[in-house]
């Protein structure tokens, strides 16, 4: 080993390169499938969030499991407290209704991202500040080159505390 193993310090050290992505025009059904299938072979099931790109490949938003859950919650249940009156099949019915919406309708359009050389602390700051599940990583040209997931940041925290077990 020419390089001594060092703890990850920058976004590029822990990001997932060439992450799966969605287009704003894709259906939410596609989003759910992609998130569910993400990292399928990596021993962890599903990814909690995906980047959304436009036709030119530029970042236009993020969509997370939380966004999908919010989208299946009918507007009227957020207006007044009606949660006691849900029926058994309601989740399935609302999921079917939501699935035909586009990603653009349910995504979080407030685009937040970091550079490849951003310190991990910057990623933590953004995750906490914006309640994100993942942070897109952009190269100098503004193209998405990776995604930092919350669980990878968390692993970095665990490794910092227990280096010998890493």
């Amino acid at each position: 080993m020419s390089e001594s193993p060092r703890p990850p310090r920058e976004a590029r050290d822990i990001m997932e390169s060439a992450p799966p992505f969605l287009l704003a025009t894709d259906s939410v059904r596609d989003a759910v499938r992609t998130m569910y299938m993400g990292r399928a072979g990596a021993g962890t099931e599903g990814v909690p969030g995906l980047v959304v790109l436009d036709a030119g490949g530029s970042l236009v938003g993020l969509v997370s499991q939380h966004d999908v859950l919010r989208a299946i919650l009918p507007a009227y249940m957020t207006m007044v407290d009606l949660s006691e009156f849900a029926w058994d099949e309601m989740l399935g019915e609302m999921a079917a209704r939501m699935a035909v919406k586009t990603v653009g309708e349910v995504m979080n359009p407030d685009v937040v991202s970091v550079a490849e050389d951003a310190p991990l602390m910057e990623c933590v700051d953004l995750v906490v500040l914006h309640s994100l599940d993942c942070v897109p990583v952009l190269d100098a040209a503004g193209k998405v080159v990776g995604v930092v997931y919350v669980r990878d940041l968390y692993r970095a925290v665990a490794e910092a505390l227990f280096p010998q077990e890493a």
Partner: protein
Amino acid sequence: MGTESAVAGGAVTMDAAFWVATVIFLVSYAFIISEKIHKTIVALVGASLVLVFKILEQGEAFHLEALGVDWNVIVLLVSMMLIVILMRPTGVFEYVAIKSARVGKGEPFRIMVIFAVVTAVISALLDNVTTVLLIAPVTLLIADALELDPVPFLITEALASNIGGTATLIGDPPNIMIGSRAQLDFMQFIYNLTPIIIIVMVVFLGLMKLFFGRGLKVRPELKERVLRMNEREAIKDPVMLKKSLAVLAIVIVGFVLHGFLGYQPATVALFGASLLLLLSGTKEPHHVLAEVEWPTIFFFIGLFILVGGIVKVGLISWLSTKLLTATGGNLLATTMVVGWFSAFASAFVDNIPYVATMIPLIIDMAHQLWPDLQGTALLHHPDLMPIWWSLALGACLGGNGTAIGASANVIVVGMSERAGKRITFIRFMLYGMPIMIITVAVAMLYVWIRYFVLGW
């Protein structure tokens, strides 16, 4: 002092003040109708200009009901809002709505009728916007459970809310204003308007059956979903609920007796609101007070001063002379013109500024017709009474004509859109306009028969 008699009935001098006040009023109205700037801001700017140009002295604007702010209206509105704000978290409205759906046994048209009646009754006692804000979400839930299009239900509720609100002094802002300035008490509204509103509701529900009765079919297993809901789970704060209902009962008894006891409605409402605030045990009244719809309250304040300006300079007097000339002083014709004109005006513009303008106009007209009378002898002249009722019926029922005719309609359309069911202007009007024309026709027939044929 510019009292009613001093500013009314005389010859109008079209001096500089007259034109300044008229221009301020017309430009403000144009902005309110265009909705380019929020109506509250327009009304406040207009009102401040009325003061800056010394059309009204500040004392007249703040302390003279005939020309300025009608505090009876303001305090009544704020107090009733406070009562609702304190009642809402108890879950009582959700309870009533879920209970209604269960009483309807999951039968769509039966639910529609029960929801309409419940909406009308609550709207008669509380404000219409609050009523539909609370009923509409439950309606959307029930429609989803029954796999039905919620739009017919929502439109029915908006219309029912405006009809129900017409029934009492406190049901709708136009009635609050009319009650205050014409010194008509709660029971006079009950005697004169509630009977016709019951008839109008029956006609309305018949028309709803015709419009929506056929398309509503539900599978039995879906009805089960509604029947399994337990309305008791909606109650979040049983202790506060008991307090709220007790205070509401006191307030309603207070309204029924206010004329007899010599209290203004605002006194009754303020007593109820403050008592409920005390009983709620809240340590932070600013949270409760912050929920009052201050934009609406300040809209009223601005509007009263704006209208006061054109009353003082004689524009209203000039208009009332024109109206009397047009109807040849025939009171039946005047009553009918007021009713129908109010209906169509209110279908397209906010009925609050409209009624705020019409009230001084009618008072001025009364001064011209009966120059020797003053006070209630004038305001309650037997020949004037049908005009007040006609104004209330026209302005309130007229709101049903279009999606923008009443606040309840705007709320329902907005909620429906958020739920993914857009109600277009045309779709609303397709139901609203025929309902408006038929209900106003029924109401005007009632006014004619009761006051002109039978002379009650």
